[in-house]
């Protein structure tokens, strides 16, 4: 990707990718004496589907947690929208327009699907506590406007039939979809997906791949995802970062990464003579 112009590039399927949206510079993350991430740099460009892959324990989830503010790296800088981001709490990151899903699904089990997705819009609701009490009508109008947006996402992800169902009762595959819907409801500039296809069967994986592509296409959302399944990753993403033992061992288009010897070694093992 060295020949890539500063202002972006055009993908093989003809999509225009914009400038740098987020940049990680020399990130190092330690837990006590253990280095989870060592000196990693990469960028995510506007409109891109960017994947982070690597074997178990490579530090992929840690990297996602750094981006979403759940971990604060000891060294390195996070740049977002061309500005250096001060260390901040996860909820502050969320308010900046970075939404995420979790590997082990973090939904509000006691609430309905609709209410879960509505929580995604909490940061966008303007009316405060007192104006809500004083101007009931205005608060209601705002709620309706948000509700319309949410209904669009519900249609988009084809979960109309379960909108009133408490999330705790849903099967795993649908929960993953509701979590995606909640993240989308925030209209994020950057969407982080932590193993969106983990534990799914082939059919569910195909559905999820389709939704990810459609989200990127329809809303122009920039997506960074972590995934185990190499086949899925290579089909989905524009560019791939490969991690192993907390270090970056490859970065480029799926084809470039596939041909990278260090990546092949990490995945298939090295022959010792």
């Amino acid at each position, binding site marked *: 990707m060295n020949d890539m112009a500063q202002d972006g590039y055009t993908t093989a399927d003809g999509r225009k990718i914009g400038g740098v949206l987020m940049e990680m510079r020399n990130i190092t993350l330690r837990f006590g004496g253990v280095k989870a991430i060592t000196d990693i740099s990469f960028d995510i460009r506007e409109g891109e589907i960017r994947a982070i892959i690597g074997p178990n324990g490579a530090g992929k989830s840690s990297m996602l947690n750094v981006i979403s503010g759940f971990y604060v790296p000891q060294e390195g800088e996070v740049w977002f929208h061309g500005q250096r981001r001060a260390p901040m709490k996860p909820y502050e990151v*969320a308010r900046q327009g970075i939404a995420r899903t979790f590997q082990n699904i973090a939904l509000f089990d006691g609430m309905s699907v609709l209410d879960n997705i509505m929580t995604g819009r909490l940061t966008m609701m303007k009316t405060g506590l007192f104006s809500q009490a004083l101007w009931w009508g205005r608060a209601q109008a705002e709620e309706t406007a948000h509700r319309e947006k949410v209904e669009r996402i519900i249609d988009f992800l084809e979960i109309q039939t379960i909108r009133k169902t408490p999330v705790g009762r849903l099967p795993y595959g649908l929960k993953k979809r509701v979590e995606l819907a909640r993240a989308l409801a925030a209209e994020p500039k950057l969407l982080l997906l932590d193993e969106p296809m983990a534990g799914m069967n082939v059919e569910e994986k195909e559905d999820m791949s389709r939704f990810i592509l459609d989200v990127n296409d329809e809303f122009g959302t920039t997506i960074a995802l972590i995934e185990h399944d190499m086949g899925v990753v290579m089909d989905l993403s524009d560019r791939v970062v490969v991690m192993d033992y907390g270090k970056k061992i490859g970065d480029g288009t799926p084809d470039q990464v596939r041909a990278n010897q260090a990546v092949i070694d990490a995945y298939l093992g090295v022959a010792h003579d």
Partner: protein
Amino acid sequence: MVLPDQVLYAMEAALNGLLSGVMYALVALGFVLIFKASGVFNYAQGVMALFAALTLVGIQQGQVPFADVINLIPGVEVHGFGWTVPALLAIVLTGLVMIGMALIIEALILKHLVNQPPIILFMATIGLAYFLEGLGDTMWGADIKTMDVGLPQGMSGTIDTVTNAWFGYGFYVDQLNIVATVVAAVLVALLMLFSQYSKQGRALRAVADDHQAALSVGISLRFIWVLVWSIAGFVALVAGIMWGARSGVQFSLSLIALKALPVLMLGGFTSIPGAIVGGLIIGVGEQLFEFWVGPLVGGATENWFAYVLALVFLVFRPQGLFGEKIIERV
């Protein structure tokens, strides 16, 4: 209408039971709120009610806080500012004190216990209860105080007249209980609207469900916790006023929390309407049980009836009447 005396007495007992049930429900409400929002059983709720009542009386009567401590300094002798504060202003000021307390509780306790299991937080609230009890004593003194915020007290003349006209027998109903009922109804209506329909209410339910997910949608745990503890402090204040006006402001006020436990077991720990209905059932049950069964067993059944009822519920319907049945999916 002529009814047998026994029926009239039972009706009177039931009516009074309903009204005192509201008082139980008031305390139970505070528990439910914090439990819903943080999954923590707040052992300190009763003491918070005591502390609120002490502070209210102290401010109203112009007491100097920590007077006993200040007087330890040789040559210093203070007792009061020498003014009295109007009841309404004193209530507002006490409300502010309770909000300040919520801020301090968040900063000193909750912030450091994020992601700890509920039992740890429960232990922390036990510590908080003892601390607040001591603080209340040191700040305002340990003597029994009377609360006078202008609430009507004594027999309600209207009810006496009306029932006399209907049945030829006047019911004795304390006016304070009627006021408590109205206050509780307003409070519950406000809290229900808040938790079901406001943005913060939805955020509050989200935090109770999953901390991590709540953070990921941009909810500040800090803000929600301060909000919840402020509301719990406010409910404690209302309960403190009602109970303080009824039986004086003294240490035993903090024990009303014990009465809230059976109410919660009946109504369910997660339901606001449950707290109300639970309170009413216990209130009425207690009075009628005392009326019918009391004479057979030598009376004083109020002391244990609620707890036995709660035990029965624990055996047959552990989640209470309205509580959420926690479904665990493997």
